[in-house]
C-alpha cells in the first residue's frame, strides 16, 4: 500500500461536505484513490455512501471541499462532462434504459464519441454510415466480452436480474472510464451470482486497467475483493484500512451492530 499512496491518486476527494438543508449527509470526507485500486466504501444504511457517488459524478453539487480527478477539479462540472472525462458508475437500483435493447443501452454510452455530427446523421453521409457500423461492431464485440452478444437485441426490461446487472456494468464500461463506481453491485444476487460478479469485477479491472470504487453491503464481496476499505457512518469516515484491519475495528463493529451488541460480541 505504501507506494500506491505516495503516487498521485487518480481520484482525490478533499474534505468533501454536503449539506441537505441543515443536515450534513457527508462531513469532511477525504478519500484518495490510487490508480488501479479496488477500493471499498462501506457503512450502515444511511451512512452517506451513495451521496458520495452522487457527489463524485456531479448528480448533486458539493457544498464544501473539492474533488480532483487526474489533474482537474471536477466538482461543479455537469454529470455528462464528468462521465466524458472518465468516471462512470452503476446505480444501486438498476437504471437501465429499460425499453431499449441491450445493444442500444451500450451504444448510448458511446454517444459522446460517436465520431459523427448531427448534420452527418440527418444527411446520412458516408461518414455516418461508416462510423455507425464501426460503433455497432464495437458494441457487439464489447457485449461479447460480457457474454451478452446473444441477447443484444433483447429489450433490457425483459432480462433476468443478474443479467441486468451485467448489462449495467457493461454500459458503464462502454463510457470508457478510468474510474468505475459500483453501487451495491451484488444487491439481490444469490451466492453463485455473487461469485460470478466477483470474478467479473476482477476481470474488468485487469482488462480495462480500471480503478474501482465499490459500495457494498455483502461482507463476502467486500472482504473477498476489496484491497482497501473506507468505512462511513453518519456521513463521516470512522475507519480506514485493509479488510483484515477493519474486521477487528471496534468502531466499525459498533456502527454496524450497535454498542451493546458489539461489546457483548467482542467479549
Amino acid at each position, binding site marked *: 500500500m505504501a507506494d500506491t499512496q505516495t503516487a498521485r491518486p487518480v481520484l482525490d476527494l478533499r474534505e468533501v461536505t454536503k449539506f441537505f438543508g441543515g443536515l450534513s449527509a457527508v462531513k469532511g470526507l477525504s478519500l484518495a484513490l490510487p490508480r488501479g485500486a479496488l477500493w471499498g466504501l462501506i457503512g450502515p444504511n444511511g451512512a452517506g455512501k451513495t451521496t458520495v457517488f452522487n457527489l463524485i*459524478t456531479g*448528480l448533486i453539487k458539493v457544498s464544501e471541499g473539492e474533488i480532483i480527478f487526474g489533474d482537474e477539479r471536477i466538482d*461543479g462540472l*455537469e*454529470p*455528462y462532462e464528468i*462521465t*466524458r472525462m472518465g468516471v*462512470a*458508475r452503476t*446505480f444501486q437500483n438498476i*437504471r*437501465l*434504459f*429499460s*425499453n*431499449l435493447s441491450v*445493444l*442500444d443501452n451500450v*451504444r*448510448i*454510452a*458511446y*454517444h*459522446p464519441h*460517436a465520431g*459523427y455530427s*448531427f448534420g452527418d*446523421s*440527418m*444527411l*446520412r453521409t458516408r461518414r*455516418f*454510415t461508416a462510423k*455507425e*457500423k464501426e*460503433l*455497432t*461492431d464495437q458494441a*457487439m464485440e464489447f457485449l*461479447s466480452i460480457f*457474454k*451478452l*452478444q*446473444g*441477447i*443484444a*437485441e*433483447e429489450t433490457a426490461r425483459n*432480462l433476468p436480474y443478474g*443479467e441486468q446487472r451485467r448489462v449495467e456494468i457493461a*454500459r*458503464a464500461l462502454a*463510457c470508457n472510464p478510468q474510474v468505475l463506481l459500483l453501487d451495491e453491485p451484488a444487491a439481490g444476487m444469490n451466492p453463485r451470482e455473487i461469485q*460470478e460478479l466477483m470474478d467479473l469485477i476482477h476481470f474488468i479491472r485487469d482488462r480495462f486497467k480500471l480503478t474501482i470504487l465499490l459500495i457494498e453491503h455483502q461482507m463476502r464481496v467486500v472482504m473477498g475483493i476489496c484491497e482497501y476499505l473506507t468505512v462511513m457512518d453518519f456521513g463521516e469516515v470512522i475507519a480506514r484500512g485493509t479488510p483484515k484491519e477493519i474486521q477487528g475495528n471496534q468502531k466499525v463493529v459498533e456502527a454496524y451492530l450497535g454498542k451493546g451488541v458489539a461489546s457483548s460480541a467482542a467479549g
Partner: protein
Amino acid sequence: MELGYLFSTIVKMAALVAWIYGLLWGLNRKLLWQKALTVILAFGVIQGAFLLSFGDFAVFSGFDQGLLFQAVSMAMVAVGLNVIYGFNGQFSLAQWGFYGIGAYVAADITWWWSSGNASGLLVAGIGVILGGLAIALVGRLLRLKRGIPVLSAFTFYLIAVVAAGAVAMYLGHALVPLVQAGFGTKAAPGILASAAAQQVVFILAVVIAGAFAAEISFLFGLPVLTLGSDYFGIATLGFAIVVQTLMVNSDTILPFPEMKGGRGMIGIPRLTTWATAFIFLLLVIILVRNFVKSSTGRATLSVREDETAARAMGIDIAQSKLLSFVLGSFLAGIGGALYAHYIGFLSPSMFSFIAGFNPLIIVVFGGLGSITGSLAASVAWIFFLEGFLRVLLGQMGTEAPTWRFVLYPIALLLLMLMRPQGLLGTVEWGFLKADRLLKKVKPADAKTPAAVQKENS
C-alpha cells in the same frame, strides 16, 4: 347513400394506410431505382386518384382531397410532437402554437408576394438566416465560458436574435426595390409574378416558416426545458395561449394589418398541391428517420427512459431536449405552412389550445414512439372525425355533427382501455424500422438467451 358513404370512407382510410405501408416498404428497398420508383408510384397513385372520376362519381372528391391535405399537415405536426413527447419524453402542448406560427409566417410571405410586394419574403428570409447565425454565434461564444446560468444564456440569445431581426428588417426593406422590378405592372406582370415564381416562393416560405418556428422554439425551450416535465407541460400551455392571443391581436398590438387579427386572414394564395405536400411529407419522414436512427436519436431516447442514467452515461440532456424540441417545432411549422396554403384562410380560432390537443391525441392514439403510428393515426383521425362523422351525422340533422365530440372521446376511451400503448405501440414499418447496420452484424453470433445462460453457468 349513408351506407355507401360509410363504406367508401372506410375503404379510403384503409387504402391510405396501405399507401403509407407501401411507401415505407418501398423506401426500404436496397437499390436506388427501387426507391425512386416507389416515390414516383406513391405520388402517382394519389395524383391519379385525384383525377379519376366516373361520370358524377369522383374517386377522390374535392372534399376528400381537402381531408388528405389536412391529414398530411396534421401528420407533420403529430410526427414532430412524437419526437418531442414520444421519443424525448417531454410533454408539450406548444406544438399547436408552432403550427400556428408556421401557418401565419408562410401565409404572410406569400400574401405579400402575390400582392406584388417582396418585403415579406426578404425580411422573413433574411431574418431567419441571420437569426440562425446569431444563435450559432452566441452558442459558440457561450461555450468558451462555462457555468453560465441558463437565464443569462437565454438573455444573450434573445438580444442576439432581436438584433438579427432588426438588421433583417432594415436589410429586407432596403433590398425590396431590387426585386420589385421583376414584378412588372398589373397589365404586364413580370417574371416574379408568374406561377412558377409563386411556387418557388411558396416552397421557400414553407422552409422559412419551419425555420422561424424552430428558432422561436429554441428561445422558448432554452429556459423552459430545464423545468421538470410537468412544469414544462404547463409552460407550453402558456405558450400556446400567448401565440393565440398574439394572433387575435395581430393587427393591433402587432404590426401586421394583413393578418386582420381575430377576423381572420383572407386571400392567402392556395398554392399547396399534392406534389408539394408529398415532397414535404417525404422529406419529413426521411429527416425524422435519420434523426431517430442515429446516435443523437438514441441519446434522445435515453433521456425519455431515465434522465439520471442518461446524465451518468455522458449525455448532455439539456442539449438533447432542446434539439428534439426544436426539430419537432420545425416540423410543426412546415405542417402549418402547408395547411395555410391549402385552406387559403387563417383564423386564430383554428389555433386555440383546445384544438392543440388533437395532435397530442393522435400521437397517443398511434403509439408514443412510433412514427408510423403518427402517420397512420393522422390519416385515420382526419378521415374519421372530419370526413366520416361530420358527413354521416350531418345527414341526421343540422345539429347532429356536434355528436362527434361525444363519439370520438368514447372511441378514444375504448382504445385506451384496450390498447394503452396506442394502435401501433412502438411498431414501425419498413423504412422507419430498418436498422440495416444491425442486421449486418454477425448473425452467426446470435444465440438465444437460454443458450447464453447455459454457456455462462
